[in-house]
């Protein structure tokens, strides 16, 4: 039982990262019906930019308090990646908004290849290692379950960001506008909503959240490389589908669930088969309930 609980805790940490990244996929899909394959790269770029700020620019030493320094890193990187997200939307997706559904998919794959290789050219092909002690090395053991401070930060920060986003979408006028756009662009426009602005907003929030996930991966695992966007992106996308794509709480539930499924798969089946377990469950869910766990049921054609 103790081992099982430890696995669940392990899974929650992994899953909250997936969930943060999944939010970016699900928001873009909700509004544009586009799988933004480049989103995983934005997550990856977040961790590389954080590396530059912390290691190359030595930002932390210019700021008196370490916590303030970290907050500055998070904000700056989120901002920079949001700008990259905006540029991506403007260059690679906006010109294609009226074309068939295949074209944006290929454009997204192209953007993903471009960003990945751009990072490889700038930072090189190897692993970069984040410094130690960005966060003090504190560990707790509660009833035989071990958890470190950084894991607690990951869990707390992701869950608060998700709550924040949920409230934004559900309780504010801006959120209402976003929901309206996801239903129907033209009607939303008739209601006086600036659809382009809402789409731009989605390409600010999603990449910013992805970037924060990227920084946390850099800080916790402390090892980043230019190919990690694919791996996390694919999982996060799976998580978004699992929860029901286009559905914000769905992405959160899907992410956490996928994380737990993975650790339990690794712990009780075999580590090498854990992705197979995750994908089989995904496929079963799609066959039995094609819109994911929390999505509304819609058939291909009525």
């Amino acid at each position: 039982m103790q081992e099982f609980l430890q696995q669940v805790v392990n899974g929650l940490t992994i899953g909250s990262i997936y969930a943060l990244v999944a939010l970016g996929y699900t928001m873009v899909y909700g509004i544009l019906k586009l799988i933004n394959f480049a989103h995983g790269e934005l997550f990856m770029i977040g961790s590389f930019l954080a590396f530059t700020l912390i290691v190359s620019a030595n930002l932390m030493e210019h700021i008196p308090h370490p916590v303030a320094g970290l907050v500055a890193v998070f904000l700056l990187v989120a901002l920079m990646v949001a700008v990259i997200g905006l540029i991506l939307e403007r260059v690679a997706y906006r010109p294609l908004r009226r074309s068939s559904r295949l074209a944006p998919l290929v454009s997204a794959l192209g953007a993903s290849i471009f960003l990945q290789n751009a990072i490889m050219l700038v930072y090189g092909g190897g692993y970069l290692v984040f410094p130690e002690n960005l966060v003090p090395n504190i560990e707790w053991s509660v009833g035989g379950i071990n958890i470190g401070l950084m894991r607690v930060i990951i869990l707390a920060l992701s869950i608060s960001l998700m709550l924040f986003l949920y409230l934004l979408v559900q309780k504010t006028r801006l959120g209402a506008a976003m929901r309206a756009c996801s239903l129907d662009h033209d009607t939303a426009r008739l209601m006086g909503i600036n659809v382009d602005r809402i789409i731009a907003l989605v390409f600010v929030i999603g990449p910013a959240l992805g970037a924060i996930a990227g920084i946390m991966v850099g800080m916790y695992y402390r090892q980043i490389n230019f190919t990690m966007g694919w791996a996390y992106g694919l999982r996060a996308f799976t998580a978004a589908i699992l929860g029901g794509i286009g559905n914000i709480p769905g992405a959160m539930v899907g992410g956490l669930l996928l994380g737990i499924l993975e650790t339990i798969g690794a712990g009780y089946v075999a580590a090498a088969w854990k992705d197979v377990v995750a994908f089989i469950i995904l496929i079963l869910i799609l066959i039995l309930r094609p819109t994911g766990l929390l999505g509304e049921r819609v058939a291909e054609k009525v």
Partner: protein
Amino acid sequence: MLKKLLVVMVAAALVVAAAGCAGGGKSDTIKIGVQGPISGDWALEGQGFVKAVTMLAEQINAKGGLLGKKIEIVQGDDKGDPKEASLVAQKMVSSKVIAVLGAYNSSATEPAAGIYNEAKILHITPSSTATKLTEKGYKMFFRTCFLDNRQGMFAADFIVNTLGKKKVALIHDNTTYAKGLADWTEKFLKEKGATVVFNDAITPKEKDFTSTLTKIKGLDPEVIYFTGYFSEGGLLLRQARELGIKAVFMAGDANNNPDFVKNAGLEAAKGAIITTLPLPQDLPYKEAKQFIADYKAKYGKEPESIWTLTMADAFRVVVEAIEKTKSTDPVKLAEYLHTQLKDFPGITGPITFDEKGDRLGSVHTAYVVNEKGEFVLYKKQ
């Protein structure tokens, strides 16, 4: 429709043909190929290959070259992928190299070895340790690294006799190299009466291994021996300590990299043991000291890994063969390496090849991470 198809076919044929006719070469140089993952996940290793060989070739060319000819290095980037490797190999054959050094990983070396052997080109890998590579009777194939089983033998002996431990968990990453090493170690451990409570894979390029480690924690081993690569090794070690696992952590020679300690963090890395060929700076040979000094002077950093040095040795062996035989005929060179070369003073120790092209001997040893995070030779207390 068919007409369109025709037009496109003609266009395609023209492009390919135009490309095909380009090329050709001069023969007033001795061409030596370097093949490896110059881009992709193992880009640093591949770039280390190129740097090492380029430097040595420049040194020789500065002294007037070999047999009065300059050495020309031909690079081939296989990204570590078998398909790319076979294309690179065909390209090497077309560009008339006499020898090719490389392919980093065994699955890229494999298809290339067949092509080079068919084309009668000398082929030396510095780092592909899969046993079966030398089992096919290829006359042109050699390696300057040691087989996986030598290290497994050393690791098992070290665990049982030096550390005095009996209960071991083995972790690999399903790659040829790591799984081979784990299985050899298991075999030798069992022969010595130790028990292996776990021998299974983690997925390389992942970052979170807590689920596997939680499982291992429940099995309570005295030693954990990880046979994969440093990028996962450091993470495994730190996550093991975070989960409160107290077992001795040992890792195979692919963890012989400063990033292993950086990844693990000093606190966790202290006391971790690595089985490996001696580190570049610990190699007692004067050739090694010279090479490392030159490398630092030229590139401003230490060699990437031990494979940079075995690559340098591969190159030096070829040069030696050319000088001794006064020939650039690859078949003669291979013949010389098989039969004549004895205890050639390599950067990584004396080099002798057996009839299969494997390097004889073994210089494996154990290192421990000290208080400052440096690898120091392990001494029994």
